[in-house]
């Protein structure tokens, strides 16, 4: 029998198919068809195929735009937004518009073409997370930017146009709608209860236990009770922190551990599957957002989102989060030496 569940942060209802859940093998996901590393702009020795790098993490001495890097950040070759110029806000009748000012960067996660994030060493995942932090701190110096979104698309169905592991970053001149809603929802809750809603969710989930995927000293990974997608997983710091950019090195290595583990568990349970993840963190260069709590949202794309979801903001979840979490928790990961 279906059950309706309401997201306590933004007030969105989802339908959860609690009685006839779809099991992992029933999603019938085809394995990824690799196109190969020939002419891949993200592989070693092809550095000239991307725009000149913005920054890179390397364990050795190297000249910019040459091999030897661990993580490389470059401007997107086809940027959705441009960095130079003024916003020049205008209105025509009902309508408001402005120039598309912003930054659009690509974080090449590793020189290895065929490795997913879960197949990298812990240290290498840590480098990726460090690059996220450093870009976030650098871009916020530009006062025009109000939000920095870091996200990752894997697989064609999730919007990835290149198969070599990479993340993207877009710096926006305004706080986007979804973030605004979450920030507002958290603030409202905080004003009434003087507690953070995300902290309350963490406490509730730790006590309930049934939606936990894994945890370590600093982080909890769980399937939210009001997930929008089957096998959706959030990773959230146990301590109340509103800004990803201020994460310290110890927490960062624990984050690398849990992110690698969660992606590995998802891969083990679902096989190759398209997914997106995003980091939701506080807006920058605006008021303080103390009541917010940053987190990763990992969204496997196992079903085709249809007109219904787009037009209504009402989602149908085919695998209840409790069952998804059980699969993810119980799957055996091979011991790796990393």
């Amino acid at each position, binding site marked *: 029998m*279906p059950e309706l569940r309401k997201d306590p942060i933004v007030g969105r*209802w989802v339908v959860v198919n609690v009685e006839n859940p779809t099991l992992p093998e029933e999603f019938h996901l085809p394995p990824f068809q690799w196109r190969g590393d020939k002419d891949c702009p993200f592989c070693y020795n092809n550095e000239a195929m991307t725009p000149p790098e913005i920054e890179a993490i390397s364990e050795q001495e190297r000249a910019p735009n040459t091999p030897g890097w661990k993580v490389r950040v470059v401007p997107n070759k086809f940027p959705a937004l441009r960095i130079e110029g003024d916003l020049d806000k205008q209105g025509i009748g*009902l309508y408001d518009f402005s120039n598309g000012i912003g930054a659009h960067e690509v974080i090449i996660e590793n020189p290895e073409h065929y490795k997913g994030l879960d197949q990298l060493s812990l240290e290498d995942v840590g480098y990726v997370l460090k690059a996220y932090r450093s870009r976030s701190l650098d871009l916020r110096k530009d006062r025009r930017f109000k939000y920095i979104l870091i*996200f990752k698309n894997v697989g064609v169905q999730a*919007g990835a146009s290149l198969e070599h592991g990479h993340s993207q970053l877009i710096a926006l001149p305004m706080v986007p709608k979804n973030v605004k809603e979450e920030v507002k929802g958290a603030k409202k809750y905080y004003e009434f209860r003087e507690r953070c809603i995300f902290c309350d969710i963490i406490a509730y989930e730790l006590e309930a236990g049934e939606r936990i995927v894994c945890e370590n000293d600093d982080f909890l990974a769980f399937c939210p009770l009001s997930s929008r997608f089957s096998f959706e997983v959030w990773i959230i710091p146990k301590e109340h922190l509103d800004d990803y950019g201020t994460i310290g090195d110890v927490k960062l290595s624990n984050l690398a551990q849990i992110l690698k583990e969660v992606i590995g568990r998802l891969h083990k349970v679902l096989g190759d599957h398209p997914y*997106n993840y*995003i980091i939701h963190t506080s807006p920058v260069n605006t008021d303080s957002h103390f009541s917010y709590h940053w987190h990763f949202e990992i969204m496997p794309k196992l079903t085709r989102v249809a*007109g*219904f979801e787009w037009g209504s903001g009402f989602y149908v979840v085919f695998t209840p989060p409790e069952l998804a979490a059980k699969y993810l928790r119980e799957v055996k990961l091979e011991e790796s030496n990393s």
Partner: protein
Amino acid sequence: MPQLRKDPILGRWVIISTERAKRPKDFPHIDTSPPERECPFCRGKEALTPGELYSIKDEQGNWRVRVVSSIKPFLEPNKKSWKKGKGPYDLMEGVGSHEVVIDTPEHIANMADLEVGNIREVFWAYCERIRALQEDMRIKYVLIFKNYGWDAGGGRVRHSRSQIIATPVNLKRVKEELEGAKFYYDYHERCVFCDLIRQELKEQERVVLEEDGFVALVPFAPRFPFEVWVLPKEHSPDFYKTSWEDLFSLASLLKKVLLKIKILLDDPSYNYIIHTAPFRRPYPGYWSTIEEDYHWHIEITPRLTQVAGFEWGTGFYICPTLPEEAAKFLREVEVRV
């Protein structure tokens, strides 16, 4: 230079990307759909579907449009409703209705290829079902939509049909639109959609088609390339109150728009969704100006691009086609019905 545009109703920003500006031929059509299954929707296969809820028959007694319960319903009517809290979360029973409208007894995939009279009957069936569902006091909203083609969430059977979902809660996106319209009305004492139509008809830049009381236009800040909205020119909050005569004009216009999309973009998958006012019932959050502030419409979204992490994370969309250009392309496709 890319542009940022704001939807005047929802306040949602979109990026109109000029760097990757895309014309109709730039969207490759890759058919990823699995092989077709035996069709349970054709004439003579009535026993393969669950109980019939409504039908329109011709003079010989053969059905032309049938409405049946979904085989895999998201929501079910015969339940006792309950509500409860769980930690910070709210839960309730999945009471409601999930129905399938079989648009035609013939095995035709795309609504664009149905006769205008047939499309009008489909619309009439929508209206009749909304009227029937209104009787159930637990229902707050009735959503009508169509998924055509695999990429739009259509099934493995290529037989034209639509879906109806009646929900016991207000849907987030619908609610935002209602609130946006109310906000505008509170200040201007005018309907935002009526103002929008007036401005569009004056500017003519984004209008695709205008005839017999209806207008099809590409919105100023669309989420998707070649997105088209169809609206009644006269103010009207409820879709289901459209007259039998007006439904013919609407069917004729919609068929033309769907044909234009089919020809221009090589038969792409698409969704459409009808946004109409919720039932006027005294429930928390209800307001009395809905009659004046809301305006029903159909949103048609071809599925040409993949929605990626950025869109999910922000609710901020990147549209790779300039709306004015999309409208021009659509306007120039010649169709006859």
